[in-house]
């Protein structure tokens, strides 16, 4: 939306509307004629996929809320009624529960994409920060939603997480009781969690609007990280990216449907089909898979308060990332050292997830032979997680020599990713083009 709109209302009504509320123009400029870099790959389809995920969660969630009873005596049974007696209730619930996992799968792809192509750098800092806000809200929504079916993991997960606030000095106890609405996790807690679980997705929808607004000011980044220079670098969003996103969305839905119809329980935990019982602690309390890396970071610190601080810092560090990475080059395609560190970063996130799922003193397969248990693994990977943001990215900008980049997006499309040897007139790019 750089001011030069190409929308032309064709009927008297649209002309009348356009002079009063130019909403069709907004849609046209944002999703039809929006100039989009011509070299976006499939990693760029996850934004559209995420919008679909949010809509799916809201629609299935509203239907579930018509049948769900937020009371500790009836919640579990009401979920069973949804599964057994509500028409297609089993389908709606399965979509909602699997949908939460698919939402996180997509958001992780989306975030790693941004980390690799340097999408958090100027001029997209606000866009990135809004994304991190959405991610935080998603985690809150998913945690609150997981409490609603009032199974053993719901109850004990809520107990563990709310108790983390008890680690705060002085205000710990009042804050925890304020969250609970009583002296333990109980009916008041369930009621407020339901209310907030209903609210947060709409907050997410609001932040998504800001996120897309902040996207449409500087425009998309792209796999080369090079800024759009001329109109030859772009294509109109429609039909080029509507069709590409559409294809990716349907492939994603195929995987989604595979879980919904053939393995609705594999992503969840069996214990959550046991009704909550405050007197019986499960042998192992684990969060859903998408929160496991943070659980591993929490447990990596022997001190409870320290663990809580580190866990929140793991997300907090993402907010300041745009100012931690000192490299002038956006895309890691042209950053021979950074891409290795990035690869290890992805592996360490997966490893943290694994460590979060296992008991801390279980020996790690293979590495167990030299005495490495999951606690140690979690600690080492936690250190790497923070080092990546706080040491590696700040230092690399000074020591790394980027490889030569093409002069423009158009050139990278027409002549490949190396700078043109001759003919295109561009030649090798000076090593320090600002922020590309």
């Amino acid at each position: 939306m750089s001011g030069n709109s190409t929308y032309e209302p064709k009927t008297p009504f649209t002309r009348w509307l356009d002079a009063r509320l130019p909403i069709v123009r907004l849609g046209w400029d944002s999703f039809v004629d929006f100039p989009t870099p011509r070299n976006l790959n499939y990693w760029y389809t996850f934004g559209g996929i995420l919008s679909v995920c949010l809509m799916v969660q809201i629609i299935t969630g509203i239907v579930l809320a018509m049948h769900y009873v937020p009371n500790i005596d009836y919640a579990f049974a009401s979920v069973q009624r949804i599964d057994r007696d509500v028409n297609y209730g089993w389908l709606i619930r399965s979509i909602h529960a699997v949908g939460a996992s698919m939402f996180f799968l997509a958001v992780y792809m989306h975030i790693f994409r941004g980390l690799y192509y340097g999408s958090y750098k100027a001029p997209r800092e606000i866009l990135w920060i809004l994304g991190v806000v959405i991610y935080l809200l998603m985690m809150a929504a998913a945690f609150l939603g997981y409490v609603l079916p009032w199974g053993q993991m719901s109850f004990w997960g809520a107990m563990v997480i709310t108790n983390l606030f008890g680690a705060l000095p002085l205000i710990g106890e009042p804050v925890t009781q304020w969250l609970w609405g009583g002296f333990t996790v109980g009916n008041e807690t369930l009621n407020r969690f339901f209310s907030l679980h209903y609210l947060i997705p709409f907050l997410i929808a609001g932040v998504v609007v800001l996120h897309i607004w902040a996207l449409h000011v500087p425009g998309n980044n792209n796999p080369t990280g090079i800024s759009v220079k001329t109109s030859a670098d772009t294509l109109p969003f429609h039909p080029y990216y509507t069709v590409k996103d559409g294809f990716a969305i349907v492939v994603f839905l195929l995987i989604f449907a595979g879980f919904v119809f053939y393995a609705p329980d594999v992503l969840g935990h069996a214990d959550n089909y046991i009704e909550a019982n405050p007197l019986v602690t499960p042998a192992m309390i684990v969060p859903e898979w998408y929160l496991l890396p943070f659980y591993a970071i929490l447990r990596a610190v022997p001190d409870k308060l320290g663990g809580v601080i580190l866990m929140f810092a793991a997300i907090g560090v993402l907010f300041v990332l745009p100012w931690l990475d000192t490299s002038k080059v956006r895309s890691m395609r042209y950053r021979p050292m950074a891409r290795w560190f990035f690869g290890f970063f992805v592996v360490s996130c997966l490893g943290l997830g694994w460590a979060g799922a296992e008991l801390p003193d279980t020996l790690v397969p293979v590495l167990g032979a030299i005495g490495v248990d999951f606690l140690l693994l979690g600690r080492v990977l936690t250190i790497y997680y923070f080092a990546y943001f706080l040491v590696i990215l700040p230092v690399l900008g000074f020591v790394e020599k980027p490889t030569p980049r093409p002069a423009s997006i158009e050139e990278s499309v027409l002549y490949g990713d190396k700078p043109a040897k001759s003919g295109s007139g561009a030649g090798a790019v000076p090593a320090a083009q600002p922020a590309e």
Partner: protein
Amino acid sequence: MNKLSKLLAVAAVTVMVAAPAIGAGYYRSPEPYDWSFEGPFGEYDRQAVQRGFQVYQQVCSACHGLKHLAFRHLGQEGGPFETVMVDGVEQSYANPNDNPVIAAIAAEYLISDIDDIGETIERPGRPSDMFPYPFANEAQARAANGGAYPPDLSIIVRARHYGADYIRSLLMGYDEEPPADLDIRAGSYYNPYMPGMVIAMAPQLWDGMVEYADGTEATTEQMATDVTHFLAWASNPHMEARKRMGLMVMIYLFGLAVLLYASYRKVWSRVKH
């Protein structure tokens, strides 16, 4: 903070930090069994579910409830009595409340109710009634079972790791000598499949204890398999409908993906990329 919540908080944090120490044990993975309901096209074996229901009624229902199930569920689509023989003709009923076999099963139970002058009464069950709980309350259930609580079986297959394989192995897993270092108190039994390897449920199945309506020989293994099959249905009553719809959805989405891919190729053939 009151005492209970403090206790819970401590317990939660202990489990979080020290979970390894408790409950782990080296209990055995269940023996895998080739269930007819596994796989993308798997279905329940109606005969096995019917036999399993008989085992539940005659054995397990003395201690275990089935509180999320009503009698009518037995006659709904995908249930064991969806089609029944009436006067030698196979019949099916769109409304399970009209199903005479379901009505007969329900009528065998006494359900407590309040009549129209407010008296508490016991009346024969109807298809719409939920399965009655064998005890007056949890305290009575524990008192009758040496302090242990027999869990509700409505969703037991979904509520245990390894699902049906675990339940079947557990029911058959009593015939071994406990290891010398395991302390088995009176009222407890060694069962290598149970986490912790000690269970408060005595062995329940003995060869020939049930006389199957369809004449199948009631060995311990047969009964364990059948009752597990029944419990698998009870935990996932819409599984067959789910898989059937899944097939249509997958075919539809796959076709749509092919069409969209073709459009994508066509649209992008106009520009170099």
